[in-house]
């Protein structure tokens, strides 16, 4: 079985055992709590949060994100190999928590204080340039800045007008009255800063004129709040001093943050631990609780059930009971895939599409070989394949990644090996051609040593195309075989024999007709088989219609499905297209490098240019070919293959377990 068997259980017990039970379950991660419900007035136990006092996960996460820009990475390689996660075991974990938890409040509040200081200082610093600009433009004021320049008999405005309107305004004011004084205090690219003084008696008329020329009064007390009684030049000096001051403050705060960033490792451990506590707290929502007891339902991995029951019996001397429950009729269990070591690596492909439902089989083991073959033919380059395999192998050997990541890496390793095989078959060696690398060429065949097919010459393309389509035919027929098995299993006999088997017969007959006598079947024989298949389909495909007249009509329409199968089959020609694309684009990159290097005036320069072009070009080709090979090998599974037998749509088994955001906890 490649689906892990799950059993529904109910656990009932006295509240005093709750904490230890949940601790154990959380660590082992063998069960998924069934749906949450909040029915009870009672709670199971108090929140565990008080363990940390006021330090909660949100504050820890805040401190982490605050410190992140300031950390000095000590070992880039370690970080790289562990995927940025902290690797430690359970004992080290509780040790660190015990040491750090009392200090956490201090570290986190220090972070909060620093953040506050930094934000304030940065905001203030950001507001300085505007003030400085204003002070510069007021340099002609020759007096201190004050709230009000009015006297008993005069009114004064300070403000700015667009530079373009300065002379017009001056003319207009001169025409209005000779009792108006306008002095320009300063100018920048767009505006002139002016002071206008006049008699109170004519002030309203002057104000109207000013508005006409887009005069904008400046409230000095608002803009330069702290500088009442300073002259503009004093303000400038003060602002410059203040800026230096703020820069100092920011630098000091950043230094302190840098110093605090040594705690990041502990903060991460703490945050993870807190998240675990939270998930345990949230588990309470899944409990039925009475005054003294608790009970909950869950899906447990069947294989782990016996050990779990035994442990419960031992640990709680019968005061916690585990009961197996029967499934209700329409109940859909969650799904967990559980394949062997090799096939496990292909599970993400199935998961990408969707998980198998209650009665469906897990298709992973069936898609794995086809995926590899298609991938190998699509990438089809020994060099690229070796590169992929080496990178994957490097991380597998030297990396300390989680089990899931290692499983994905193994998939890359297999894919790399498949691409090497594909490359040998099609002669893909970094896009080289035989004339560019004569030392590697077999003098008898004119091919690379170890190359089996030349896909770009003679009958090569057709051979490659036939190979692709043949693989496709096998893939499709295999999918239909799986559909047949599935239908028999779910007792859908008419579907199995009248639809799936009938179509397989028809398609094989058409195949024999197309291949003709090369497979030892005479034309007449093949034709008869085709006719038999067609008649069979016409009889069976209309059977769901009630009306007897419509039955044959729908039977004939059913035959039209042949086009769907044809387009499915043709879809596999993409293997050939992608396989050729890798080689030819690689070849083009090499060629470009050669052409450019020959254009260079000096051979050393030429070699340099060639190396750059080759590196860049092949990285690009490698990346895009890899992407294409992956996506299209996947697509052939999802649409052509799964379309025949697989629906998916089950809920994923999400165990009540420790999340692994920052840590990789290794036991022994």
């Amino acid at each position, binding site marked *: 079985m490649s689906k892990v068997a799950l059993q529904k259980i109910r656990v009932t017990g006295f509240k005093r055992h709750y904490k230890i039970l949940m601790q154990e379950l959380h660590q082992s991660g063998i069960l998924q709590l069934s749906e949450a419900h909040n029915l009870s007035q009672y709670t199971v136990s108090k929140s565990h949060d008080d363990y940390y006092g006021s330090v909660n996960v949100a504050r820890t996460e805040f401190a982490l994100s605050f410190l992140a820009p300031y950390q000095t990475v000590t070992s880039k390689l370690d970080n790289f190999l562990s995927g940025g996660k902290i690797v430690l075991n359970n004992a080290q974990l509780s040790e660190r928590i015990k040491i750090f938890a009392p200090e956490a409040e201090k570290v986190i509040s220090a972070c909060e204080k620093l953040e506050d200081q930094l934000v304030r200082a940065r905001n203030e610093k950001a507001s300085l340039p505007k003030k400085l600009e204003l002070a510069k433009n007021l340099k002609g004021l020759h007096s201190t800045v004050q709230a009000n320049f009015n006297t008993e008999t005069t009114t004064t405005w300070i403000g700015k007008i667009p530079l373009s309107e300065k002379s017009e305004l001056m003319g207009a004011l001169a025409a209005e009255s000779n009792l108006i004084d306008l002095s320009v205090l300063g100018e920048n690219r767009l505006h002139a800063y002016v002071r206008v003084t006049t008699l109170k008696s004519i002030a309203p008329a002057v104000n109207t004129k000013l508005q006409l020329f887009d005069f904008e009064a400046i409230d000095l007390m608002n803009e330069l709040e702290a500088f009442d009684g300073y002259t503009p030049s004093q303000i400038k000096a003060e602002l410059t001093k203040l800026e230096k001051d703020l820069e100092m403050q920011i630098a000091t705060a950043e230094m302190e943050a840098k110093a605090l960033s040594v705690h990041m490792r502990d903060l991460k451990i703490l945050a993870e631990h807190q998240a675990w506590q939270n998930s345990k707290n949230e588990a309470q929502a899944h409990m039925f609780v009475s005054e003294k007891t608790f009970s909950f339902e869950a899906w447990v991995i069947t294989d782990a059930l016996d050990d779990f029951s035994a442990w419960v019996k031992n640990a709680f001397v019968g005061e916690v009971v585990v009961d197996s429950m029967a499934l209700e009729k329409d109940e859909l269990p969650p799904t967990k895939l559980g394949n062997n070591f090799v096939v496990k690596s292909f599970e993400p492909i199935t998961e*990408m*599409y969707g998980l198998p439902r209650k009665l469906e089989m897990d298709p992973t083991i069936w898609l794995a070989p086809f995926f590899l073959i298609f991938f190998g033919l699509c990438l089809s380059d020994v060099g690229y394949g070796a590169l992929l395999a080496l990178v994957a192998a490097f991380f597998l050997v030297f990396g300390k990644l989680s089990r899931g990541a290692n499983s994905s890496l193994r998939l890359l390793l297999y894919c790399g090996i498949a691409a090497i095989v594909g490359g040998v078959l099609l002669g893909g060696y970094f896009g080289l051609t035989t004339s560019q690398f004569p030392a590697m060429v077999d003098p008898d065949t004119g091919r690379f040593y170890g190359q089996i097919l030349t896909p770009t010459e003679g009958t090569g393309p057709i051979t490659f195309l036939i190979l692709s389509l043949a693989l496709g035919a096998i893939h499709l027929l295999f999918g239909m075989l799986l559909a047949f098995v599935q239908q028999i299993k779910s007792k859908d006999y008419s579907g199995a024999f009248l639809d799936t088997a009938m179509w397989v017969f028809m398609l094989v007959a058409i195949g024999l007709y197309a291949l003709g006598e090369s497979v030892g079947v005479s034309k007449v024989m093949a034709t008869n088989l085709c006719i038999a298949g067609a008649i069979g389909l016409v009889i069976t495909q209309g059977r769901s219609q009630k009306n007897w007249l419509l039955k044959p009509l729908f039977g004939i329409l059913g035959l039209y499905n042949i086009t769907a199968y044809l387009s499915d089959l043709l879809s596999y020609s993409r293997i050939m297209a992608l396989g050729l694309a890798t080689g*030819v684009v690689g070849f083009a990159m090499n060629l470009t490098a050669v052409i450019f290097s020959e254009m260079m005036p000096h051979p050393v320069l030429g070699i340099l240019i060639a190396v750059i072009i080759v590196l860049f070009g092949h990285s690009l080709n490698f990346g895009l070919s890899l992407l294409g090979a992956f996506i299209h090998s996947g*697509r052939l599974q999802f649409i052509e293959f799964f379309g025949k037998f697989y629906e998916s749509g089950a809920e994923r088994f999400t165990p009540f377990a420790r999340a692994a955001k920052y840590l990789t906890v290794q036991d022994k």
Partner: protein
Amino acid sequence: MEYAVMMSVIGAGLSIGLAGAGSSIGIGTAGTKGAGVFGENPNLFGKVLLMMLLPGSQGIYGLLIAILILNNMGALTGEISVTAIDGMKYFGAGIAMGLTGLFSGWFQGKVAAAGIAMLPRAEELSGKFITQAVVVETYAIFGLLIAVLLVLL
């Protein structure tokens, strides 16, 4: 001879020109949507990039056909010789690849953009969004298939 060479060169130009245009439009459409999405949630960058690059393959197919044409007519080695029939074939190959590449890249970009827009709300469906976009590529692959056969046979 000169006529055949002209047809071949136009064929190569159409192939990479149109298919490249299709890829550019497609990636542009998907990329514009993508910037908005991963701006909101930077964790989605990988998935957005993957989907954004999907319409990139048409341009590569176009390049592939163009290079095969140039190679076959000898433009890469220096001695150009094309028969009249080969010229026609290369022209047809360029049209087949160019047009299918143009339109499938263009519309694949739209489908990819729609998928990208849904990513923040349904990240777990990313595999299906990719599959949906890849369906559009089928016709560029058919175009490529015919073009390859025309050029190489």
